[in-house]
């Protein structure tokens, strides 16, 4: 199971990469595998900010639907527009081309509650 060391994780299977105060968020390799073929990523295009722990969108797969939870507070900088035509980018490239949203992190002191790669690996039992 691919769980990059340089990312942080949530118990809800999101990952976040942090560069300065910019955070890029997606779902993990494990999560995309559990969901199966993703057919639609539903995020309000007018979404302005994320609130830690709150739902900011949903992912529709053939089999099921899953919610996206914000790993931290932040201002929305960009939503991955490539997902509109190719939601399966998440299946094919969960940590790279399949990123979902970029934010300006607003509570960097709270990031310590995020999971390390090792903690996340333990959580999913892989």
């Amino acid at each position, binding site marked *: 199971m691919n769980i990059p060391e340089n990312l942080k994780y949530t118990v809800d299977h999101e990952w976040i990469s942090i560069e300065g105060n910019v955070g890029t968020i997606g779902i993990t390799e494990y999560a995309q*595998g559990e969901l*199966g*073929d993703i*057919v*639609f990523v*539903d995020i309000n295009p007018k979404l302005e900010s994320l609130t830690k722990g709150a739902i900011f969108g*949903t992912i*529709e*797969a*053939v*089999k*099921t*639907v899953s919610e996206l939870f914000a790993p931290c507070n932040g201002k929305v900088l960009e939503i991955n527009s490539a997902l509109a035509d190719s939601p399966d980018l998440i*299946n094919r490239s969960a940590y790279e081309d399949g990123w979902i949203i970029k934010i300006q992190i607003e509570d960097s002191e709270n990031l310590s509650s995020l999971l390390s790669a090792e903690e996340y690996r333990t959580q999913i039992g892989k």
Partner: protein
Amino acid sequence: MKKTKFFNLHEKLGAKIVDFAGYKMPIQYSSIIAEHKAVRHSVGVFDVSHMGEIFIEGDRALDFVQLITVNDASKLNAGRVQYSAMCYEDGGIVDDLLVYCISDKKFMLVVNASNIEKDFEWMNKQNHFGVSIKNLSDDYSLLAIQGPNSKLLLQKICDFNLDLEYYHFKVGKCCGVEMIVSRTGYTGELGYELYFQGDEEVAESVWNQIFEAGKEFNILPVGLAARDSLRLEIGYCLYGNDIDQTTNPLEAGLSWITKLNKQNFIGKEALLKIKNLGLSRRLVPLLVEEKAFPRQGYEVSHQGKIIGKISSGTVSPILEKGIALAYVDYDYSKEGIELTFNNRGKDVSAQIVKLPFVNR
């Protein structure tokens, strides 16, 4: 958890394995959408060995099958298959099944994996005819070969002519193994189902010969997830979702297999009463144009009033739209009516359409 004789092959192919109806089954090999499209456009193979095979044999085998099933088995002759259901006295459904007429004294009943034990017990309770009832589910492997190229493929490895009418079967050698080959399936495509006995070695040999012969058609193994999306595009009922002991065949759209003019069968009186009183609800197909997809359990409304619930829902890989089956109040069950379902707080409109969802 039981394993089918193809389990090691599934693991080798990298299938995602889930626990389903007491079996370790492949839910997906590569991609649900790719597997689904392989069946619609070329050919795919399903291991459905978890299904149950119960054999009824005896002088009064036909009388017995007539009593426990709602369709008219007297219309069958050797080599024919019939879709049917078993009901309780109150008209609730014990299971839906296929009835294979091997001779007028021998039938094979193919039942849902999750119901094998329940059905077997139920059948034994109704056995006033001195017939033998044998559950050979563990002995039989079952592969479904489905898709427009299934016949071309199978004819290459089958010793007998595969010119079979829909819902007919032949017994003969295929891949060097004696088997029952029927023109049946759960996908709405041209397709065949292969029932055969033998150990893992036999099973793997059959599988490998099918895939060797299927190379030129880009054959794919297909998991349970695509099996579900394929059957829902056609509108076939799934026991446990769309039908169960709390639903009757009339409201489930299975009147066409429920022969109320047949002499006697379990549930007939209750079903006649239900028919005369009028149905209170019906299973209807819903098509969704918006990018919000119907899922099992979502409530269905008409102008703000809750009138039903979705029993099966998914995204159709062919239409790329939401499709569902839902039980709704009879008054709102006509084709063309606009309903809404609640998609986690959002109202989404859905229209009652005609089956099948995909153009056949």
